[in-house]
């Protein structure tokens, strides 16, 4: 086509709204001109109502909160008696532990699924949360001036200084979240500021895992080494191993999981969440848009570590043991597997993945104690090859079509491009909208 022809065909007046024009004079005077142009750019919408998606948003948030609340209540009050009736009462305890693991899975999903940083060292944060609570559980039942049992064995006569704060329950609760979060923030700041990404970040987290594992494993005098901290008795006047207390922990886990879910949902749905996705997809573009990704990554990494700390504490109190084994590299990788199985960048997927994989694992290890590890490996391979987006990702994208095909139900296709064409859709919506208001 010739230039003139094109010109004739596309007589379009481009009008750019001038967005917050900074007409600062760089001689020192600063004059900020108010954005005026924005007004006349949307005359078209004056006839129609300016649709702010606020009301519908509020509604859907309420609905979702309702669903989450209902599921939480059912899990707390209905599932334990049901399992007891079936004669599987011990599974309630298992479920509680797995739900605690789901919290750390949510944390992994935040940094891996949304922000694209694959951390293979979350076991450290998990274990730190666990140790924080375990230290309090060691100290709580003691009379003043006495030391935890294992310290006597190794000839320690005075309580190490960093054990002191764990006498206090509130400080312990803060420590469970803050210690892992601060460690992650420090590590993250050093790593992200130097623009270390991708595989190198994963390797660094692995290295951190090994360092912490060796430290905790070697310090018999401080942390009872390989044996870890166990044999919890009482705290806050409650007997740790009593069924009522354990039910309390079970309920607490579910409540915290629901709250964590809500928190992650809040983080990921707004502009902040979109920026995380943007960082995952194209970090340097984010820089050129005027954002500094370092701060965002540090914050998300710290939040994720804090969640791991909470999960670690809840898990510890329900299993009755925390040992350096939680800092094992294999365990950190397992956490990633849960998220991969459930579906990256889908919060519900992380929860489902954690619960599903762990239940499958406990069932298989009961049935086939020798070879169940193979099943776990196979599961991961299957997911990576057949369901790269995880279970939830598959459900959202392909499940309907695949199930239809399996059942032999044919779809009614009208005019393929017409159904999916957004312009047609918009016109349709506008038409129906106008008719609606006209009536």
């Amino acid at each position, binding site marked *: *086509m010739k*230039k003139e022809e*094109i*010109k004739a*065909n*596309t007589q*379009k007046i*481009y*009008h*750019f*709204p*001038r*967005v*917050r*024009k*900074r007409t*600062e004079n*760089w*001689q020192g005077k600063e004059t900020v001109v108010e*954005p005026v142009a*924005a007004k006349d*750019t*949307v005359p*078209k*919408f004056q006839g129609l109502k300016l649709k*702010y998606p606020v009301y519908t948003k509020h509604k859907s948030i309420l609905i979702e909160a309702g669903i989450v609340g209902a599921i939480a209540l059912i899990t707390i009050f209905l599932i334990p008696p049901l399992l007891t009736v079936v004669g599987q009462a011990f599974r309630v305890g298992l479920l509680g532990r797995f739900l605690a693991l789901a919290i750390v899975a949510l944390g992994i999903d935040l940094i891996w699924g949304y922000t694209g940083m694959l951390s293979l060292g979350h076991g450290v944060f998990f274990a730190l949360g666990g140790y924080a609570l375990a230290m309090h559980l060691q100290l709580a039942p003691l009379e003043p001036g006495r030391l935890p049992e294992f310290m006597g064995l190794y000839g320690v006569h005075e309580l190490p200084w960093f054990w002191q704060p764990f006498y206090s329950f509130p400080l312990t609760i803060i420590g469970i979240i803050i210690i892992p979060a601060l460690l992650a923030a420090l590590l993250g700041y050093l790593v992200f500021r130097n623009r270390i990404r991708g595989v190198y970040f994963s390797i660094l987290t692995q290295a951190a895992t090994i360092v912490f594992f060796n430290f905790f494993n070697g310090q018999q005098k401080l942390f009872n080494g390989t044996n870890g901290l166990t044999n919890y008795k009482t705290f806050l006047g409650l007997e740790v191993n009593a069924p009522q207390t354990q039910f309390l922990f079970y309920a607490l886990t579910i409540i915290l999981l629901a709250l964590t879910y809500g928190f992650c949902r809040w*983080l990921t749905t*707004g*502009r*902040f969440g*979109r*920026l995380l*996705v*943007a960082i*995952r*997809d*194209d970090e*340097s*573009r*984010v*820089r*050129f*848009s*005027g*954002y*500094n*990704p370092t*701060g*965002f990554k540090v*914050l998300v990494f710290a939040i994720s570590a804090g969640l791991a700390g909470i999960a670690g504490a809840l898990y510890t109190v329900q299993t009755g043991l925390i040992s350096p084994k939680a800092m094992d590299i294999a365990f950190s990788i397992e956490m990633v597997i849960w998220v991969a199985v459930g579906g990256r960048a889908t919060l519900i997927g992380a929860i489902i993945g954690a619960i599903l994989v762990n239940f499958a694992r406990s069932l298989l290890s009961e049935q086939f104690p020798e070879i169940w590890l193979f099943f776990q490996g196979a599961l991961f391979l299957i997911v990576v090859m057949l369901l790269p987006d995880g279970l939830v990702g598959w459900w959202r994208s392909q499940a309907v079509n695949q199930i239809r095909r399996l059942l032999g139900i044919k779809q009614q296709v009208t005019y393929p491009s017409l159904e999916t064409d*957004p*312009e047609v*859709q*918009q016109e349709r919506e506008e038409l129906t909208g106008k008719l609606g208001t006209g009536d």
Partner: protein
Amino acid sequence: MNAKILEIDNVTVSFGGFKALKGLNFNLDQGELRVVIGPNGAGKTTFLDVISGKTKPTEGEVYFKGRNIQSFAEHEIARLGIGRKFQTPRVYLNLTPRENLELACNRNKNVFATLLRANSSDEYRTVTGLLETIGLSSKANVSAGLLSHGEKQRLEIGMLVAQSPDLLLVDEPAAGLTDEETYNVGELLLALAESHSIIVIEHDMEFVRQIANNKVTVLHQGSVLCEGNIEEVQNDPQVIEVYLGKQEEEIETKEIITEEEEKIALLEITKEEKMSVSEIIEKKIAVSEITEKEKKIEEV
């Protein structure tokens, strides 16, 4: 309006031993639209990298609005008011055009402000207006990965505008577009030039002619070869030598061909149907006229 918005003073960038830019001097007036051309490897993209802070100059200084921006990181430079469009459209594919624009439009780009501050209705209106301008209103809520190449180009330009920079750096906006789309992008840039200073890097000479209403800068081997309006540049012997080194050869063959006048066929050698001169002779096609190709200047 004579103030210089951008001054590049004797900048050298070397990667190892290789000098991508050699003692480059460059000035841009406020409100100017400048087209930068140059053969491959002339250092055009490095030139943009230096301005936007992606690459730090080994020697020399860059001043934006009279401020030395050498020590600033990319995001700080972006906040000062330099926006950059990349060669291949780089939009966030998993977000919708609206979300893309909202991210660029966000006024306070600190971590906690981004997290806690709600979208203002002002921003909502700006984004809606921008979507209209770049012609993506109907696709505002589909994921950007589903957009066509031209739509992504327009979206990225929209993101630039949403950022409200004072200086736009545009790297080959017409790459991979049809003639019509190219023309549209050109008009967009001209409209933008009314309120922004713009540096455009481009190969497509027709496009350059469309938008170059002011000066054109030719880069060659990391420094400025010549500067002037489009006619001056095209007639500059140095530029012709750099770009059109083969022209002598072509003139010779022209004489040979015109001697043979058996049949007259009008042949338009376009980008798609390339024909070497020897082929033309073999097929004994008479050529009435040889005009300079106006497509990619480098192909000549």
